[in-house]
């Protein structure tokens, strides 16, 4: 089999973070080549470089043995490299046929679109894959995600693609749709298309891949034919020799739980989730994006409503219908994305921090006591070491780490008992990160119950007293800090059920 695409010595960095370090990767025609790795291992960056969404800092790409520069997704597609994303990017109002031929319509001699020819060609494409094509004229928005994916695969074929990249294609498919997709991938492979297949479901990889490349920390850690490797070996390489020293803790966990979640379910998001949070502990929540972690904590905080199950807080069943109510019960939630749910960009640092506790610093006539506000603001700036000229400085001008600290300060200002932290150090520089870690440990020592969601395994292992692992909306593992290993956590996060501690 010949090599259709080769990547040699590709590096890419963002700011100070080296996302790819001299990566080599080769795809043969007619193979399914799986790409696996933890979050942040560099898979997405590599795919973005191959599909033209990013340019590498260094290194070369060869396509059909020619050196190429792929500087836009459109160019990639025209060359014959197509990508099918987890959630298909489609024009919802247009039909399947229009989506396939958008921008390169088949035209009649006088320039108008030849609808009939387009439809015939689409039908032929679908028929060649053994697929039904009764839905081709319906708007894409009304098709299931599975059918939308098929349309994008057909589009890739219409471009006569020699490389098709599947990025987590089965994450939101039904079992039946998944089977159909595997059938199609087998057919594509027989036609000589080279397929890059990204998935967190290792069992799928053993079913359909010919080879697998394992990445970690921006480097390739191994390339294997599927016959010469087993699941444990892949997990070991993904985890690496992860030696994480647990952060020092002084406080003691209490025996009575602060927050109890019982059989919480929400259709399509998470099901039958139960766990407890004790005062003085850090409960780490690990799972891939889309595993339902954020949905669960947003439900606790009153941003979403469960279909069934109970939330018991300090011995009482509670239903928070808004963040306001959750805050009145001393629950705080640091959201996952500070830009979307955290910051007020053109307000000053002081106003950003005080918004959550204005009601506590009111004087006569319900007027905010500015001196108190300023003192509290300055206190947090000092305590969290926020680097800002003054409290009036607008937060958009601060660095990512300082912006994150402002959002954390806002939530500390509510003097919570339960503090839910969703990716507390995402997009934060190394120095700020360790400051935030020390702060979290200190808060737990003071007796707060902390729930910390993270996609970063080292962070979870460093900070957590206990670790809850989620996979596709279900809890697949609960570990005590002493017995948790990186490999076990990854196993649980990729779908193996390993509940070792029940409490």
């Amino acid at each position: 089999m010949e090599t259709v695409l080769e990547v040699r010595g590709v590096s890419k960095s963002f700011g100070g973070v080296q996302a790819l370090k001299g990566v080599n990767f080769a795809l043969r025609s007619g193979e399914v080549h799986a790409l696996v790795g933890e979050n942040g291992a560099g898979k997405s960056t590599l795919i973005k470089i191959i599909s033209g969404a990013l340019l590498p800092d260094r290194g070369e790409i060869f396509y059909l043995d020619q050196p190429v520069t792929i500087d836009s997704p459109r160019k990639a597609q025209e060359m014959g490299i197509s990508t099918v994303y987890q959630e298909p990017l489609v024009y919802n109002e247009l039909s399947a046929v229009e989506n396939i031929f958008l921008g390169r319509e088949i035209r009649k001699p006088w320039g108008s679109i030849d609808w009939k020819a387009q439809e015939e060609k689409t039908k032929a494409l679908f028929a060649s894959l053994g697929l039904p094509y009764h839905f081709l004229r319906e708007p894409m928005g009304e098709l299931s995600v599975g059918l939308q994916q098929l349309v994008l695969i057909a589009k890739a074929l219409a471009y006569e693609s020699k490389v098709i990249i599947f990025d987590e294609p089965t994450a939101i498919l039904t079992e039946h749709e998944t089977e159909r997709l595997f059938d199609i991938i087998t057919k594509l492979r027989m036609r000589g298309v080279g397929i890059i297949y990204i998935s967190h479901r290792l069992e799928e990889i053993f079913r359909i891949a010919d080879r697998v490349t394992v990445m970690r920390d921006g480097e390739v850690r191994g390339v294997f034919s599927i016959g010469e490797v087993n699941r444990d070996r892949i997990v070991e390489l993904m985890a690496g020799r992860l030696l994480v020293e647990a952060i020092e803790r002084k406080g003691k966990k209490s025996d009575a739980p602060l927050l109890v979640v019982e059989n919480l379910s929400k259709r399509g998001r998470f099901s039958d989730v139960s766990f407890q949070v004790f005062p003085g502990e850090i409960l780490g929540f690990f799972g891939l994006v889309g595993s339902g972690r954020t949905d669960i904590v947003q439900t606790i905080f009153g941003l979403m409503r469960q279909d069934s199950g109970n939330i018991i807080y300090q011995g009482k069943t509670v239903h928070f219908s808004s963040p306001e109510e959750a805050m009145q019960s001393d629950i705080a939630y640091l959201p996952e994305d500070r830009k979307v749910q955290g910051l007020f960009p053109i307000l000053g640092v002081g106003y950003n921090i005080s918004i959550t506790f204005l009601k506590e610093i009111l004087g006569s006539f319900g007027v905010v006591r500015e001196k108190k506000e300023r003192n509290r603001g300055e206190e947090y700036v000092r305590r969290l070491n926020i680097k800002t000229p003054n409290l009036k400085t607008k937060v958009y001008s601060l660095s990512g780490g300082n912006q994150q600290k402002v959002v954390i300060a806002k939530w500390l200002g509510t003097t919570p008992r339960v503090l839910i932290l969703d990716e507390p150090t995402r997009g934060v520089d190394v120095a700020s990160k360790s400051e935030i870690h020390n702060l979290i440990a200190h808060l737990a020592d003071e007796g707060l119950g902390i729930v910390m969601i993270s996609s970063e395994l080292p962070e979870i292992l460093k900070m957590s007293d206990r670790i809850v692992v989620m996979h596709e909306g279900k809890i697949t593992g609960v570990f005590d800090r002493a017995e948790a290993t990186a490999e076990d956590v990854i196993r649980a996060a990729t779908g193996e059920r390993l509940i070792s501690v029940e409490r």
Partner: protein
Amino acid sequence: MNMSRGQFFRKREFTVLGLIVVLAIIFSLTTERFLSVSNLTNLLVQLAGTAISAIGMTMVIITGGIDVSVGSILGMSSVVAGKLLMANFPVVVILGAAIATGLLFGFFNGSLVAYGKIPPIIVTLGMLNIIRSLLFQLLGGRWISGVPPAIRVIGLGKWLGIPISMWIALILILFFTYFLNSRPLGRAIYAVGNNIEAARVSGVNLTRTILFVYALTGMLVGFAGLIYVARTGIVQTNTGTGFELEVIAAVVLGGTSILGGKGTIVGSLLGAFLVGIIKNGMVLLNVPALSEGLVIGALILISVVIDVVRARGERI
């Protein structure tokens, strides 16, 4: 406020103030009447209603919304006030009725935006037409004129040489500036305009905040309607037509970002003065009315362009 001198000069308020001074100098040199007491009084009287309405509009635009129905609301409250005046109701009742009329429509606007989640431009455009059409029904094409003199003191009376209506406007501006900076609801208005999602997560009551700004705008415009009747003594079916553009122009020129999130009421007052002076000066200079639109339109576009360009640097 501990801001450096440089910060002050970069503020929009300073630019607008500078423009006002420059224009005032130009007009007083080129026309004889500009500096006359009667002209300046006239200018202030005309501005009072705009300035009062701009208080509410500033808050609406800070939340990222807009209210184009204020002209129709002004017309309607003028009609209500005018009809009650002709029936010789006591002033207190008329004042209450004018404000209540504005509140009613403002509340309606706010409810549709806050609960219905309908874009404000659509809601208030609909209301603009509905109210105007109700007004036609009520007046039946006739005028109200010959308003009793007792009420006209609100429109034409003076104290310390400054019209009473302008005193009222200044008091309201002071009060609501304080409100916007120092009451939790005022802070919530800025928060909603900065990032509505973050405001929600931070425990801000979004519906209450949004409902409030539209209802308050309605009330203030209702009061401005009463001032209008008191000043002119006449109400017609087209009273208030185009008033919304004058108010929005004042707010936007005064530095409130049309993208939401920032702005001050004092800025809007200065914006109202700028618009008023331009109009007044051009009349005195006998410049055709068409060019007035040209100048004000160009200024609005310039200030919006500045906002948009500046906002690019303020993204996170």
